[in-house]
């Protein structure tokens, strides 16, 4: 699992440019799926099992969409000035204070350093408009990037034993959970669509069309969630290492309570550590699935994560392994909901 996560986080795949990520996932899931396809927005859909036609409410199986997003937050170049410095804007929820002095990898190779205008050096965090990327060149002509080119944090994977640190744990741990679940799953009564989505960080843009195309009976997202367990932290129940979190609600979605109960009873049967999540800011692909077409019962399995959207997101290995156990159980048996 550690090696898989390391392989995934070291890939650069900002929103809208998930090609390298998709190639890596495809290599993992192709032997595990009955069918793998890519839709118009670049979502990778790996299908396992197939319901007979006329499926709804007949037999044991349901059509289930399980989503984890391939993209990570990043930067996009807006201007190259005459001295070769690149100005940029954000792709997704980049926090300006996490940037100065950092390095970024462009998807086509170049690496740059983020600098800040002198006039911005006050007590307040500088704005993105006051920053630039220095690519080590002295003219516009020599600059190896162009308007529209995209980059992500450059940061090594760090193994602290049970705790793992890297950029883009959001949502590469979700991807790893899906892949490992596909590997562990012996059989299923369901038609499972493991969807590796695009453009989550810019507004759940990949998951909504994917859900429309799949038209599932039930939807789950696997994504990271915040914690409230660091010094002077915000008030939040979730703690690192206390097990995967079953989402009750976030800023844009209330999980279907039947889905919450279904997940919680499976965790109890397995005697798995687990916790419940109420996240006050942000949302996941589960929201997009829930609101698709005529509406879909949806929930989310969350991996607790510290320092989300920073270059050093921290997760706990056992939370991830337990998430795989729970998801594998949920998908291998008939769905029992009140």
């Amino acid at each position, binding site marked *: 699992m550690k090696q898989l996560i390391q392989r995934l986080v070291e890939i650069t795949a900002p929103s809208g440019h998930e090609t390298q990520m998709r190639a890596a996932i495809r290599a993992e899931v192709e032997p595990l799926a009955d069918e793998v396809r890519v*839709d*118009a927005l670049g979502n990778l859909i790996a299908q396992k099992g197939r319901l007979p036609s006329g499926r709804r409410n007949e037999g044991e199986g349901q059509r289930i969409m399980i989503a984890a997003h391939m993209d990570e937050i990043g930067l*996009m170049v807006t201007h190259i000035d005459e001295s070769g410095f690149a100005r940029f804007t954000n*792709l997704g929820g980049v926090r300006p204070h996490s940037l100065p002095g950092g390095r970024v990898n462009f998807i086509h190779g170049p690496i740059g350093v983020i600098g800040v205008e002198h006039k911005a050096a006050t007590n307040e965090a500088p704005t993105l408009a006051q920053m630039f990327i220095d690519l080590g060149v002295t003219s516009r002509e020599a600059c190896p990037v162009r*308007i*529209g080119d995209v980059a992500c944090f450059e940061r090594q994977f760090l193994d602290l034993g049970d705790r793992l640190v890297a950029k883009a744990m959001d949502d590469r741990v979700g991807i790893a959970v899906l892949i490992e679940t596909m590997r562990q799953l012996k059989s299923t009564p369901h038609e499972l669509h493991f969807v590796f989505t695009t453009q989550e960080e810019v*507004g759940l843009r990949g998951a909504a*069309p994917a859900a429309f195309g799949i038209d599932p009976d039930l939807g789950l997202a696997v994504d990271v969630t915040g914690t409230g367990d660091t010094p002077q932290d915000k008030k939040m129940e979730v703690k690192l290492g206390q097990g995967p979190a079953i989402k009750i609600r976030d800023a844009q979605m209330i999980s279907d309570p039947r889905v919450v109960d279904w997940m919680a009873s499976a965790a109890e049967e397995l005697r798995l550590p687990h916790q419940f999540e109420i996240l006050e800011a942000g949302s996941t692909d589960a929201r997009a699935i829930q609101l698709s077409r005529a509406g879909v019962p949806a929930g989310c399995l969350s991996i607790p994560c510290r320092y989300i959207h920073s270059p050093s997101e921290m997760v706990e290995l056992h939370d991830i392994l337990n998430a795989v156990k729970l998801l594998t159980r949920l998908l291998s048996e008939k769905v029992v909901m009140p």
Partner: protein
Amino acid sequence: MADTIDLKSYQPPQVGPAQIRLLERLCNACAVSGDEQEVRQIVLEEIRPYTQEVRIDSLGNVLAIREGSEKRRLRVMLAAHMDEVGLMLTHSEEDSFFRFETVGGVNIQALPGKLVWVGRSHVPGVIGVKPVHLVSPEESKNAISLEALRIDLGPGNGAKANVGDRAAFATSFKRLGASLRAKALDDRLGVANLIELVKNPPANIDLLAAFTVQEEVGTRGASVASYSLDPDLAIVLECTPANDLPSWDGSENNQYNTRLGAGPAIYVADKNTLSDPRLVRHLVDTAEALHIPYQMRQPGSGGTDAGPIHRQRSGIPSISVSVPGRYLHTTTSLCRLSDWQHTLTLIHTALTRLTPEVLAPER
């Protein structure tokens, strides 16, 4: 990739006197969001001789189809919005004064003292403001609020307007040498381009034209239009701000969005859409093969009809292309004829050399 057309002998549609006259009619017509009928009327007049397949949907979008003749045709949606920003009368007062609200993104500070046309009969009005002689030093420090402004129709004319009527900026179209000046170039330039494309459709695609409504209040028309057209891909024809004036302190302007005279502006990203990279590549390749100027619109804020279109149904590969324009969403916008021509050339050529292979690689 070998070109599917011979660019040397290929003749894209030209922007000539007839096209400029049509743009003049389109710009002088009033179509503040939700009341697009004047522009819709012109669009219908222009395109009906060219296709039987025209309908107006429930929101007022004009949807027109021109099928190609070659085999293996992509179904391409082309969208341009008919509506413009403006004002709506909200409350009538004595002596033919009206309070009003803004419709779409309008800078209140750019309104005082401006002329407007009110309602479908274009009743002339003026936006009243306190004369500078009477403004106290204290007052002059504050931004003017919408509540302080009135549309003044003049004595006896109050009955010619009703609460709910729209008001559009009263600017008549004029050609100024290499430039065109008008209200609502955003997005009558797109509408004019789309009309030309309907009149001159490439044979290798099915052209699905959507003249959309209510773009300026949240890209509402395009959402339903793309649901019903259900295309293979979409190109949005826009007019986007050029903020290309020199910086006040002489430093390099690095937030110009686009520049006048630098050719069509190809979108990579805005607030609502990350353009399909395959379509970005196709447009850039086309511009380079044609040896015409083009620019990348600076990624950042703003949104076009591509926002709802690309997320419609199971997802639709989408991109926007704009003619750059200065001073958009004010009484007076300004564009260059050369940018208009290059944009029309780029789009028509890109469509003509568009094959299913362009979308064959995964996004």
